[in-house]
């Protein structure tokens, strides 16, 4: 009996040891890279019934870990009057009327070696019966989220994809407002103001897009002071920014642009900021002369005007002093004249 027990124990030990050798080890999950470089925006002009084939360049910035991404196409809209997209990330989100979700073909996953890049193929197909005129969606690249801890972190990148379909479109941009913006720490924000204590650097115009096209206006803005030379802002949309369908979008231009060539990731890029405008105190009229229109559609005008007064404290002080000076001497003259007149009347009575 004892021999039997020993034999059974030995057999169990052998089986157990063998299982350790032959059952594959389950490794703890290894987090991949969360450092990527992507193309932020793609724009195509595609006729109905045609397909465009393109590539998306994705780079793994991490030099040690593989970048594992899952890709999917979602719709987006606008967040506010800026160019920030509102991403519709819910899996069950309904399609928008401008959706490209069913028209973009991309792989579902991609793996990129450390420090490497990959050009993945994508295609955009527009159905034969597709009406106009702007369709857009976004490609989301999601890295694997981490397990462990209270707060797991996940990094994603997004490429905005726009397709313009030639044809008769409804283009309708309504100018809501034009004028000078007050100073703001965030150069993309600010409020319209008629009176400025600080030198205005930015002129803006707000458009309501009532059409079915993501529109990009062009044109110029002219500032005309009461005294002095007029200032023309030649390009009111230097970045080719868009007003999405249904959006009230504010476009901001600098009175004086400062360009700077900078190094970025081994390349050169042109960055622009608003420089000091050099405006003198006074009254300014603002005139917008803009245009918009797709290929083959009517070119439409955007015309509007406004005004603002720039009056810093030192100019107010000078103006008050000048008025006080004038008032004092005018009053002195008037009093002198009245005094002489009274004396004359008295003399006459005598």
């Amino acid at each position, binding site marked *: 009996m004892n021999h039997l027990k020993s034999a059974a124990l030995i057999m169990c030990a052998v089986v157990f040891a063998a299982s350790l050798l032959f059952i594959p080890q389950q490794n703890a999950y290894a*987090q991949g890279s969360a*450092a990527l*470089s*992507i*193309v*932020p*925006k793609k724009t195509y002009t595609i006729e109905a019934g045609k397909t465009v084939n393109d590539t998306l360049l994705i780079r793994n*910035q*991490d*030099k*040690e*870990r593989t970048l594992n991404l899952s890709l999917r196409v979602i719709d987006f809209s606008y967040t506010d009057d*800026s*160019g*920030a*997209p509102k*991403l519709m990330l819910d899996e069950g989100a309904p399609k928008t009327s401008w959706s490209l979700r069913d028209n973009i073909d991309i792989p579902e996953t991609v793996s990129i070696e450390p420090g490497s890049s990959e050009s993945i193929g994508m295609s955009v197909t527009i159905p034969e019966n597709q009406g106009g005129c702007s369709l857009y969606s976004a490609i989301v690249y*999601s890295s694997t989220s*981490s397990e462990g801890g*209270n*707060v*797991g*972190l*996940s*990094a994603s*990148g*997004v*490429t*905005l994809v726009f397709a313009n379909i030639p044809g008769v479109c409804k283009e309708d941009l309504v100018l809501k407002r034009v004028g000078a913006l007050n100073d703001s*720490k*965030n150069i*993309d924000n600010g409020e319209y103001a008629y009176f400025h204590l600080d030198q205005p650097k930015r002129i803006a115009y707000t458009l309501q897009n009532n059409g079915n096209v993501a529109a990009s206006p*062009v044109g*110029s803005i002219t500032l005309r002071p009461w005294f002095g030379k007029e200032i023309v802002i*030649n*390009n009111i949309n230097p*970045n*080719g920014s*868009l007003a999405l369908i249904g959006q009230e979008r504010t476009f901001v231009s600098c009175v004086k642009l400062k360009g700077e060539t900078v190094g970025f*990731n081994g390349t050169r*890029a*042109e*960055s*622009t*900021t608003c420089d000091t405008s050099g405006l003198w105190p006074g009254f300014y*009229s603002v*005139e917008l002369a803009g*245009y918009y*229109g797709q*290929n*083959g559609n*009517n*070119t439409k*005008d955007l*015309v509007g005007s406004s005004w603002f007064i720039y009056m810093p404290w030192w100019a107010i002080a000078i103006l008050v002093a000048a008025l006080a000076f004038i008032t004092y001497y005018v009053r002195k003259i008037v009093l002198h*004249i009245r005094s*002489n*007149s009274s004396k*004359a009347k008295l003399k*006459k009575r005598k």
Partner: protein
Amino acid sequence: MRTHINQWLIHLMRWSHLALELLLIGILIALFIAPSAGAAMRLRERSLYMTNDEAGERSSYVLGFRYMSPVPIGSFELLFCNDPIPYNPCEVPLGLDVSDVSLTNQTGETGFVISQKSTNRLLFTRTSSLPGPDRSTYTFDNVLNPLDIEAAFAVRIKTFESNNGTGPQVDFGSVRGQVIKGIQIETQVPPMLIFCLAEQVEYNCTGTNDIYHSDMGKLSPNETLTAQSQMAVGTNATAGFVISVVGSPLSAGMEVIKSLDTPSPSKLGKNQFGINLVANNSPGIGLDPEGDWANATAAPNYGQSNMYMFKDGDIVASSPNVSLMKKFTVSYIVNVSPALRAGVYTTTINFIASGRF
């Protein structure tokens, strides 16, 4: 004599006072009530159709517009420029050439021939006659498209009573054109957006500390739990970038630690979950954004020291145009009430970097 002069001066002062008031009223009317210099007679229903809009390729252009002024028209000029504004200097669109075009079709007001051609200018002439109300179109072939796919170009149209393009203009207007794809100009670099995220990241995203979660410790109503992570972002795209935050509050089953809906200070004993992207001293956590570039900033709601917030889908940082790499440190705070049920509270926060439109 002197008396008369003085009396005259007094009367003059009264009248001059009145005149000054009238002048001021007139100026106010002129500035604020009178309409600004509006559009002169612009040609209406203007359009340009390019049969081939590929940069650097030959194309036919169909130009359409409606004459407005009831004045005989003998000629009209087309001037191709980068800028549509008539009184601005005309810069020729790079690569464009219309010196070899031919007029192949015309509708509406017809009888025109192209009498003058240059690289960016065409003059159409005919025997002067009064235009009708219908829209006119003019098709001319063999236009060499511009090369620059980044910017639109314009065709400035002017009509004249004379039949040789001289004298005062009658009507004017511009149409807009844009080319696509085509030759990649060597100086242009494809736009890219670089983004990375971890507990700690290198400034230029070449590495991270390989930790993608935060363990905030044991929840207690007497202590604010904190954690931080970092993300670095930069782009050479002229439209800039935005970073959004997506996720749900800390939860354990049905129990949820409420997120802060508006920027709020940290308060012990209250259920709070929030983040910000700046340095704080209450509690002492976080760093201000690092990097020389001023374009990229934390969003106003997430850029206030000692004020925290978390709303699913909010933009937490952005740049309106090109931005060198900028590193943001995200501070997380959690406070709980004594009544909170025990459990393991977790969440996953997704930071999404995207371009702007």
